């Protein structure tokens, strides 16, 4: 039975690969890619989600495929953790694929065929990353994923900005891959083979274990977009076509979380609390930094990309707390933190996928990404507006939607801190909870800005007035993910139990007895009387009151309405340009958090004949880290180029010296 789930997942991944290849033929008209490829991909995604869901409840299954290099077959393994991430990948990819079926319909044949290939190879490689059970296959799948996504990011490769975004992405991806490779090397330690079983069995000294942890944390962190390795993310995500952005942000970042959990909890094992503190500090920085920069953006997709940075930070906060608790020997609280982190991983995949799809529909119909040129889209695109609202409320961690549940669980984890023996760490955990609370409120502000500027108010540009709602495929894709936001938000217990199973398979410990007895109505993470939450009652009371009020007001009074112009405060000429802009909305934050930003502002003087207000906000990391690193790299390569003399005799001398050196060392 459990081998079936593994075979089935492999078949689904193979189906993606086959769809990708088929998308190429017949290349001239790209008939297959236009009609069947994406719906087929969605079906394969659904199947994969089903198999993954199945695997969560089954013992781990293994398989060895006689592929790859001689003597190095591919090892595959499907355990609850892989099953959970396969479910995430399959379910979110299904929605995005349906959307893509509509979105890419109008592409030119050649481009469409290529997108079809890359898109499905990308999906299949992510499934393989999750299924891999040896370092070799893992790295192959990881790099395939990086390359496939690189080509997807550079779909519009004729624009130089997109080429450089793609280059930056590839660079950081490879730095990360290098760190991961080194981490596997440390775990391997020169013994045995590179199967995960052998790595798991290796016993490392604390120093080497910490080295392996740091390599894995920063290697996977580079892919996940944590600071200071996030710089590629706000460049690459907006560059890609919107369904691809949704995949990158919703799913690919999660493979990095998968890798982090897999390597730290499973392969290295013996989690130490000091590691947890490192993760917490980086996570807190990432969370705050992400949301503060998101507030400054007016490009919708860039803004969403910065929110991905923020949400990765929230996931890291949960993971870090879990590691602290496990390190101090409180596995039950540790399991709660892990559950919270993984729940947020799933939630973020769903709502961020949804938001990027919504951004794609706006881009498609209004032709704009700049918030300052939008406005009033709720009248033109009411359905997209509704789905986007669901996503916006979910990401703002508002009950009863899904973002709230996982943040709530993270808070509950932080509130377990009195069990810790170390007084300093005990009082540190609530500070991280404070960070999370601040970030949550800032996110709400940011999405009021996004929604208020883009969908509400009046159109700021004529193009916005002619926008049309998304097509059927696109709407269905968004509806699928929006439904996910509701299901994950309203019935959290089912997912809590699933994740508990994942936690047990990883750490050997699960949540408390009381938590496992939560039913569909009540979510109880630790003990009754300590904390509980019932999203269904929550929603029912609000919805019931709304309905009751509506009926009562009409019963006792009336429902008469008159329509009039908005109140103009006595100024007759109210134009759409007098509305708030995205930049204006962020102005208070700029004022309060000034030192965080690198700001360049030019204020026109009173006598200026052509007054122009310029404001440019840049990421401080560029100047503090990336540009110095780039200069260092240029300097070093200039020094290395001294070796290149261009004379054959010198090169022969190099060969000769190398030979001597080899003879000395390899006796």
């Amino acid at each position: 039975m459990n081998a079936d789930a593994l075979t089935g997942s492999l078949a689904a991944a193979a189906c993606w690969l086959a769809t990708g290849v088929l998308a190429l033929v017949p290349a001239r008209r790209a008939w297959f890619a236009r009609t069947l490829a994406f719906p087929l991909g969605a079906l394969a995604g659904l199947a994969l989600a089903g198999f993954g869901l199945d695997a969560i409840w089954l013992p781990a299954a293994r398989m060895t495929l006689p592929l790859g290099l001689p003597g190095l077959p591919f090892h595959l393994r499907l355990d609850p953790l892989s099953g959970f991430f396969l479910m995430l990948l399959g379910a979110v990819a299904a929605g995005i694929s349906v959307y893509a079926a509509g979105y890419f319909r109008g592409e030119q044949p050649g481009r469409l065929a290529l997108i079809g290939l890359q898109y499905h190879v990308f999906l299949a490689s992510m499934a393989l990353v999750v299924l891999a059970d040896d370092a070799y296959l893992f790295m192959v799948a990881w790099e395939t994923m990086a390359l496939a996504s690189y080509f997807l990011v550079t779909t519009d490769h004729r624009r130089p900005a997109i080429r450089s975004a793609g280059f930056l992405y590839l660079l950081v991806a490879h730095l990360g891959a290098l760190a991961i490779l080194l981490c596997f090397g440390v775990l391997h330690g020169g013994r045995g083979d590179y199967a995960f079983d052998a790595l798991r069995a290796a016993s490392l000294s604390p120093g080497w274990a910490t080295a392996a942890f740091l390599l894995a944390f920063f290697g996977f962190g580079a892919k996940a977009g944590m600071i200071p390795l996030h710089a590629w993310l706000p460049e690459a995500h907006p560059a890609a076509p919107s369904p691809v952005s949704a995949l990158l942000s919703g799913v690919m970042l999660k493979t990095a979380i998968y890798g982090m959990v897999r390597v730290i909890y499973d392969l290295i094992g013996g989690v130490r609390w000091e590691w947890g503190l490192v993760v917490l500090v980086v996570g807190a920085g990432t969370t705050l930094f992400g949301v503060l920069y998101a507030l400054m953006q007016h490009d919708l997709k860039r803004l969403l990309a910065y929110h991905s940075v923020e949400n990765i930070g929230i996931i890291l906060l949960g993971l870090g707390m879990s590691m602290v608790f496990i390190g101090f020997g409180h596995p039950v609280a540790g399991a709660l933190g892990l559950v919270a982190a993984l729940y947020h991983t799933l939630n973020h995949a769903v709502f961020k996928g949804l938001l990027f799809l919504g951004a794609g529909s706006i881009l498609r119909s209004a032709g704009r990404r700049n918030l300052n040129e939008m406005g009033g889209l709720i009248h033109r695109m009411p359905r997209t507006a509704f789905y986007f609202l669901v996503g916006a409320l979910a990401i703002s961690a508002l009950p009863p939607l899904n973002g709230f549940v996982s943040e709530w669980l993270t808070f509950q984890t932080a509130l377990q801190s009195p069990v810790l023996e170390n007084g300093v760490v005990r009082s540190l955990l609530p500070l991280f909870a404070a960070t999370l609370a601040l970030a949550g409120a800032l996110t709400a502000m940011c999405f009021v800005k996004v929604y208020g500027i883009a969908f509400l108010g009046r159109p700021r540009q004529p193009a916005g007035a002619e926008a049309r709602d998304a097509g059927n495929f696109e709407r269905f894709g968004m509806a699928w993910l929006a439904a996910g936001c509701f299901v994950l938000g309203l019935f959290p217990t089912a997912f809590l139990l699933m994740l508990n199973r994942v936690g047990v398979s990883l750490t050997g410990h699960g949540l408390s007895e009381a938590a496992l007895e939560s039913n569909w109505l009540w979510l109880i993470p630790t003990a009754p009387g300590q904390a509980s939450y019932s999203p269904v009652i929550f929603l029912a009371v609000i919805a019931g009151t709304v309905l009751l009020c509506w009926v009562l007001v009409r019963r006792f009074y009336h429902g008469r309405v008159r329509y009039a112009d908005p109140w103009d405060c006595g100024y007759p000429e109210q134009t759409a340009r007098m509305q708030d802009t995205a930049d204006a909305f962020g102005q208070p934050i700029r004022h309060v958090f000034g030192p965080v930003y690198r700001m360049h502002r030019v204020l026109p003087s009173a006598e200026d004949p052509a007054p122009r207000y310029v404001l440019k906000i840049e990421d401080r990391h560029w100047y503090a880290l990336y540009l110095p690193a780039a200069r260092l790299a240029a300097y070093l390569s200039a020094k290395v180029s001294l070796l290149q003399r261009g004379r054959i005799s010198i090169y022969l001398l190099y060969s000769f010296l190398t030979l001597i050196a080899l003879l000395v060392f390899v006796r």
Partner: protein
Amino acid sequence: MSNAAGIAFQLLQSVLVVLAAPLLTGWVNQCRAWLQNRSAPSLLLPYYTLARLFHKDAVIAKNASALFRVTPYVLFGCMWLAAGIVPVLATGLPFAPAADIVALVGVFALARVFSALAAMDVGTSFGGLGARREMLIGFLAEPAMLMTLFTAAFISGSTQLTTIVDTLAHREFAIYPSLAFAAVAFLMVLLAENARIPIDNPTTHLELTMVHEAMILEYSARHLALIEWAVAIKLFAYVTIGIALFLPWGIAPAGDWSGLPLAAAALAAKLAAAGAGLALIETLLAKLRLFLAPEFLSTAFLLAVLGMLIHFLAIG
């Protein structure tokens, strides 16, 4: 506690809070008028205002969307939920576990987001301005509120408001320095969240200063009535949260009909004192410049965090 009695208590409390909330607003206004040497309006004036608004025809801007019309009802629903969760008269209400303190803060956040969105719906410059300012206040007030509640949660080992109140009401009398910090922080948050002086002035329509009023400028008639009513319930809920956390004595356990009169009398006395105190604060303080609001609220946030740390130092 039998289930039926619990549900009866729950319904009684929800209805009572919703009906009594405008009375608190009226009382605060009356006290303020006395303190400012004006002749006071009737205690029931908020009710008359609501009735008058309900009778009027709603005037809605031509380009308003459905969101604009739904929002007053959503606000009212959120506040009703909050009123049902907070232990006003009794602890151990059957619906109270549906939302703990984090979810309670979430309800207020939900209401805030909806009112800010509705403010931006018509597309006037005032609406956007109000929404922006409201979110500015909210992003600091919300975490400060959460940290205040966390301090109480750490003391009682629970995030359920009803358990917290039970623990705090039945403890030995001892002064918790952490709770003192939390109380000051909570008071500051209460002022900010309920659009009172020194953050906002509920009686002004001056564009330079208004926050909450700017958001609801486009509303009229029944929509405005629902919003005003929701605002009154919000003030009531905040004051009762403060009472529940910092002065919980006298509260009845759910289903205990004999304890109810005492609980009601204690509540009335505490509410009257709190309302008078609020009026005093509003009379003594002047409104802060808008950009001092973040400083005011970050002070509240830091005080709350400090209270939490002190709790850990005291036990550790």
